[in-house]
């Protein structure tokens, strides 16, 4: 059924990509805002592809067993705090140039997905209207 393609892999994955990119932007913004905060440790975002996750997930043999927390994680992105990188004197490990670079890359990533989604929706709309 055509409507099922609206919940298909491409659109869902694209949405997760956008979620991850938004989170990454917010985390980078926070890093930049705290570039001069003593003791602050930079954070980054890791995007785990939900499809990849399913291939290596652990299986419970008995539903009464405690579920693996890995399975329960609905968000496909995680925030990681980098506690072990090189410090400045005040304990802060934010490198402003790296943050700017990540910011630019993330923006391109977001724009690419958003553009692709917009085009896909235009296409689907055309098909859905049946040419009328």
């Amino acid at each position: 059924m055509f409507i099922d393609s609206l919940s298909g892999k491409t659109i869902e994955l694209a949405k997760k990509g956008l979620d991850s990119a938004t989170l990454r932007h917010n985390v980078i913004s926070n890093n930049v805002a705290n570039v001069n905060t003593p003791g602050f440790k930079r954070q980054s975002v890791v995007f785990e592809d939900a499809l990849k996750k399913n291939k290596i997930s652990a299986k419970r043999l008995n539903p009464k067993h405690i579920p693996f927390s890995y399975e329960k994680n609905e968000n496909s992105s995680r925030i990681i705090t980098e506690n072990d990188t090189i410090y400045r004197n005040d304990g802060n490990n934010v490198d402003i140039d790296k943050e700017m670079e990540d910011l630019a890359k993330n923006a391109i990533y977001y724009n690419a997905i958003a553009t692709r989604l917009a085009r896909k929706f235009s296409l689907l709309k055309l098909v859905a209207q049946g040419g009328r």
Partner: protein
Amino acid sequence: MLTGRLFRGIDASASGMSAEKLRMDIISENIANANTTRTPEGGPYKRRFPIFTPRSQEPLFNLPFIKPPITIEPGNGVRVLRIEEDKTPPKLKYEPGHPDADENGYVAYPNINLATEMINLITASRAYEANVTAARNAKQIMMKALEI
């Protein structure tokens, strides 16, 4: 609702801009008073500097199965905790003819090193601009999303 969860990133950047701007103002004051030997409170001007601390929106709760360093919510920028006075002792210069000289002829000058202040000013300025770039970026990607 301009402070909704939608605008987290921009809020963080805005807080960074405010904080760095405040820092720059304080540095300017330090530089302007680098030779102020007499203040209403008595004694030379004392160097001041802001204390920054991360600003967080909601308290993190403890999840039993998740170990740090994985956190759930990103922070929400930075804020100025307070403005501190530098407790370093003032610089003493031997100027017996100076009205503020003490009985040994030494004048107490503010504990301000102009080179340090300039470097801090540049650092704050760079940080301010980086925050502006981040905010501009946030706006651009949100506008792009509206085209979906």
